[in-house]
């Protein structure tokens, strides 16, 4: 299974030389099984460049939205496959009893916020709300679960070719249990992330920032390390970097958190453009 990071920034895109190494595009990750099955996780601004690589020979395209906050959907309007007549595109999003996914997406993809309505896109568009049971797309098995973040938000677990990853880009796991790691059964996202080979996880805040942002749906690098240790993840990839943190700040925050926590697993700083290959 191959994993490519097209956007790792949280909240809002950044630009400029000070954030060039980690990148400035917001959340977008491409996952591809060995049989070629591809899913795209989130449609932040990073999805624009990804869409440019998908030509007319591309088969079905699946985009899975962890939630509908702007930094996770902003790139949708600029995702080329949506503008390709007949291109089969499947958009997946979290369920919400009171409003179907189409209506929620139209709040952005319609005037006055965007000139073209989602329903006017020329592609062959299919909308799905995530089922609560695991499901398969080609060689990928996908399971979602609601996680702690404002508004309906899912974390995803993807398995293929004997490998597994969990994607929790926006997640506040210490709501409920308090400190991490303490109570797995009371920790949001635990079942999704249990024993995965690669955990892609929110690591937005430094410790000094979190106390002012409790309940905002994000966590610190220390929380991410604690959550990864609790779940038994083999590797943690830091993600959803705070736009206030430049490259040097992110290096420093990660080094300090690792010095405090001494993780027994590999910690990978999530950088835009990075390609990882999970090998059985």
């Amino acid at each position, binding site marked *: 299974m*191959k994993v*490519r990071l*097209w956007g790792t920034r949280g909240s809002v895109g950044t630009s400029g030389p000070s954030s060039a190494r980690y990148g400035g*595009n917001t959340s977008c990750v*491409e996952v591809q099984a060995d*049989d*070629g*099955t591809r899913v795209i996780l989130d449609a932040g601004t*990073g999805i624009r*460049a*990804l869409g440019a*690589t998908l030509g007319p*020979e*591309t*088969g*079905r395209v699946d985009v899975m939205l962890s939630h509908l906050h702007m930094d996770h959907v902003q790139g949708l309007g600029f995702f080329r496959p949506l503008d390709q007549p007949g291109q089969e595109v499947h958009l997946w999003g*979290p*369920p919400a*009893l009171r409003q179907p996914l189409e209506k929620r997406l139209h709040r952005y993809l319609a005037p006055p916020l965007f000139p073209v309505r989602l329903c006017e896109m020329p592609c062959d568009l299919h909308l799905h709300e995530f089922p*609560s*049971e695991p*499901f*398969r*797309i*080609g060689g990928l098995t996908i*399971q979602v679960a*609601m*996680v*702690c973040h404002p508004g309906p938000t899912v974390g995803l*677990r993807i398995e293929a070719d*004997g*490998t597994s990853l969990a994607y929790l880009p926006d997640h506040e796991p210490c*709501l*409920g*249990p*308090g400190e991490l790691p303490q109570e*797995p*059964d*009371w*920790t*949001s*996202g*635990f*079942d999704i992330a*249990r024993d995965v*080979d*690669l955990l892609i996880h929110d690591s937005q805040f430094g410790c000094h920032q979190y106390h002012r942002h409790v309940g905002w749906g994000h966590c610190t690098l220390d929380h991410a390390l604690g959550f990864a240790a609790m779940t*038994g993840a*083999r*590797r943690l990839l830091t993600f959803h970097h705070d736009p206030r943190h430049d490259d040097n700040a992110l290096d420093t925050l990660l080094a300090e958190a690792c010095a405090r926590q001494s993780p027994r697993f*590999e910690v990978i700083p999530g950088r*835009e*453009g*990075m*390609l*990882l*290959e*999970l*090998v*059985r």
Partner: protein
Amino acid sequence: MVAIDRLAAYEARQNNAPHGSGNATPGRSPGHTPTGSRQPIPLRPGPAQKPVELILTRQLAGYVDVATLLFDAALSLVFYNDAAAALLGRSFESTGPLTAPQRQMTLGLGSAAQDPVALAVSDNTPAHGHMTLRTFDATMVEVACTVVPMRGQTGESVGAVAYLWPVETR
């Protein structure tokens, strides 16, 4: 769990980055099978995680000074806060979770026939009433009890939350 021998993690070359040459992962025709085919994903044995709705309600219960009890979909008492501990005479840490029969027997919180939690969950409607509660030190306390069933965004029952207020008796 399948053992992983190695992980090849490397940054794409500068000219291979998404905003660079565009030489990204090759676009292959995936040959998808239809969605909806389902298979269970085996997980390491361990405690099952509570639904996030219960987790968030516990977070709220930790902040409010109203006796609050949480029940899972099986109607077990899975948490109560400090205000409830003051009313019941024992902390949750010392009692741990109680199954529906255990709480009915220990606290008298509903009988097997008229369990307000079970009624609220099965009818998917709030239940409210006055009742006599037996605390852990066997004191009888009159309380007003409101039970609110909880459903997730897919409509499934995830349990219930009960609020208790002591009632002045003459």
